[in-house]
């Protein structure tokens, strides 16, 4: 019963995501119109060495001699058939290029999610339980500072200290390419490379969730149901673990969902700093190759990624909160 309702809920969320995806496509189209030069040259990667006949072919395919509405329709059709075009810079189809770079980004995002949400919840609870003690002050001050630190700078500083001076971690990349690891041997190597980028990307969100968790735990501990629990004879520990924690998690989960898009944006910077071969780095490279089409493709697929992660977050929320009526609008 619960399973069927959940599937129904996911279906509804997917349907609700359709306008968002369409909106991104339209936005892409508008950006193409804004770009200097006509869309075909932009799509071909500007002075990117695309043969003249290909540019002509593009003009015909996107109906650039036709009215804007028709152009939009053709553009929509191509994108929705997942035909994102061809990158002459990289001499490969855009979709393939992006999919190749997807999993390193997913790995980095997943690790960051675990570290920032998990760590944020734990630190927030520790700070709230010892409110106004040295633990609370320490955590709160660290969070305030981390919250104000630019990602790229902390990445560079970590490289300076832990890679250049101490030589504990590699400075860049995802794997030691000259070691030619295969199979399971790759795992510790990748994990070793993953440490600094994950810390860099996590720090800001760790601070965000810590502060949020601390505030909500404090608020929920003062809630009337916590007083009821106290009046039942429960220990403070049991009140926090059984009653307060779950209630306090809900805003953190909501916030984690809201931040997915920002997290992807942050990964552009972090991947650039650490030469992590993911979507972000690809975006940076295409930016300087002036390969707009590739950049638009990355934007489109990363928006889709955000939508999917948001649905997963919603499902987690629904599982935690019985008040949300599954099947209707949340």
């Amino acid at each position: 019963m619960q399973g069927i309702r959940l599937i129904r809920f996911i279906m509804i969320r997917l349907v609700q995501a359709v306008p968002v995806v369409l909106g991104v496509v339209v936005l892409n189209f508008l950006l193409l119109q804004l770009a200097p030069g006509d869309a075909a040259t932009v799509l071909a990667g500007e002075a990117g060495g695309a043969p003249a006949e290909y540019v002509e072919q593009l003009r015909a395919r996107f109906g650039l001699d036709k009215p804007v509405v028709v152009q939009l329709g053709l553009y929509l059709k191509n994108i929705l058939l997942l035909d994102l075009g061809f990158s002459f810079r990289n001499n490969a189809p855009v979709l393939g290029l992006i999919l190749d770079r997807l999993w390193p980004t997913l790995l980095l995002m997943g690790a960051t999610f675990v570290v920032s949400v998990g760590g944020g919840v734990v630190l927030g609870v520790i700070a709230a339980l010892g409110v106004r003690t040295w633990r609370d002050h320490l955590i709160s001050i660290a969070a305030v500072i981390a919250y104000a630190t630019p990602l790229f700078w902390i990445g560079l500083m970590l490289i300076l200290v832990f890679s250049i001076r101490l030589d504990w971690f590699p400075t860049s990349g995802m794997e030691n390419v000259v070691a030619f690891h295969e199979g399971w041997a790759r795992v510790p190597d990748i994990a070793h490379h993953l440490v600094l980028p994950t810390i860099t990307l996590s720090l800001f969100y760790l601070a965000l969730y810590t502060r949020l968790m601390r505030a909500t735990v404090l608020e929920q501990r003062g809630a009337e149901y916590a007083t009821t629990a106290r009046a039942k004879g429960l220990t403070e520990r049991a009140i926090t673990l059984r009653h307060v924690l779950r209630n306090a998690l809900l805003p953190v989960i909501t916030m984690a969902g809201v931040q997915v898009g920002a997290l992807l944006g942050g990964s552009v910077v972090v991947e650039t700093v650490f030469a992590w071969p993911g979507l972000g780095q690809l975006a940076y490279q295409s930016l300087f190759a002036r390969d707009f089409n590739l950049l638009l493709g990355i934007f489109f697929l990363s928006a889709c990624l955000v939508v999917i992660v948001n649905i997963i977050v919603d499902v987690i929320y629904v599982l935690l909160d019985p008040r949300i009526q599954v099947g209707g609008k949340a």
Partner: protein
Amino acid sequence: MTGSSFQGSAGSEAEPVLEIRNLSIALPVWADRCLAVNSVSLTVGRGETLCVVGESGSGKSVMARSILRLLPEPHLRISGGQILLDGEDLARVDDRRMRQIRGGEIAMIFQEPMVSLNPLMTVGRQIDEILEVHTDWSKAERRRRVIATFEDVRLPEPAFIVDAYPHELSGGQRQRVMIAMSLVLEPKLIIADEPTTALDVTTEAQILTLLKELQTKHGTALLFITHNFGVVAEIADRVAVMRSGELVEYGPAGDVLDNPQHPYTKALIDAVPSLVPRKHPSRKAETPSEPILTVRGLDKTYGRARTNPTWLSRLLPGLGQSRRGAVRAVNKVDLDIRRGSAVALVGESGSGKSTLARCLIGLEHADAGSAVIAGDEIVGLSRKGWRPLRSRIQMVFQDPFASLNPRTKVGDIIARGAILQGESPHAAMSQARNLLGLVGLDPKAAERYPHEFSGGQRQRIGIARALAVKPDILIADEPVSALDVSVQKQVLDLLDDLRRQFGLTMLFITHDLRVAAHVCEDIVVLKNGTIVERGMTADIFANPQHEYTRTLLSSVPGRNWQRRRPQG
């Protein structure tokens, strides 16, 4: 039930379960007084009910919470005195012992059942927790006990309800869960902090009956905190009256209710509106004036209708109403109000009484029907179309703290309506000053801001604002329900005076039959958006025709005591 309950134990004190001696509780330094509770001494005997009565700020709730040390320390702390439970001083026991006492020997019921229950945990589990902490029973034993307790408090289908979440229950059911929670280990003492204040009258009556009955059955002592003398008359054996942290009167319920000694108690009891409709000599039933407001077939539906019922009601029939379906707030209402009359629109929450009022004043758009105010149709009017009619009908709102713009001077608040009607600012302001005098405030108040006034004074300002445009009809939407009893009476009397003085027509929205009886000679009873009964207040009170009206009347707390009270 009521009559006998306090006569039996009056004077005679049972063996004390709880003894409070010279209890003082300190307020934080920034408060307006130093002590929330000042040297209070009370006892609660085995199996008896002690009611602590007081207005807001009297310290009654703080005192109740201090017994189980539930105060928000360090802001509020016990600064002196003893709290003896069978001789053991609760102010001095260690945390471990205090946890044994909480839930095991003393249980507590709070005012707002919705927020007092954890929304993410089934109600059964929340009660089970008490047993888990205080007993070593097996899971199956505990579950049996929880279900048995649910049967005790007469929750429907206990075996289903154990697995329900708080939001799936009604307000009354939630409070039954709270009562079950307090009873499950049969404690010596139950502290109930305004447990019926958030409930409708009919639900309140049921909960009071239940509490009384369970108390007799289990022989539990009950410390009951309330602001309502009607409730006191229903359940108290003895009464303690508190004001500003001090005990002003303390004695058997019969003595305090019928022969109060302290002037404050007298004033409080006098302020309780009587259920006996007051005679209105000025009005003669034989000369009906023309109707000033005529409503025909007025309809208002919120939300859209959905064909399928929610999964919940399919799963648990009788549980949790569907929130998704359309709510027909006002259902084909016909109403005539004659010029100069005062009509009370009475109903419980969700009866549609406020929606009807909001449709009549143009804050909501009715879906169908017609409403004619002094010859002009108002249903379907746009904001602009309404503008010339604004001076015909005005409203006094419920919450005096939300109904005045905190950033506007009182004088400007009152004068604004007249200015919008074309009055010159100067004339409007001098009229505002006059009105302030009329509602019993200093005309100089015009220069001050709303936050400098108390709730009752703000409500007077709200009345002055409504009168500033010289309306024909005044709608008063629960104008006293947010006020303390002693202030309620003053505001009601003011409304009554002004009405006579200006020949106003008044539509008075209330959930309280006593308030309705006090100010209105006609009454309309609303249930689920439909009018179930209407007529002269005196007739309806003497001889209610509809079943629902009878239930409403019999639910008024303290009705027997009030019938006996001499009328002033």
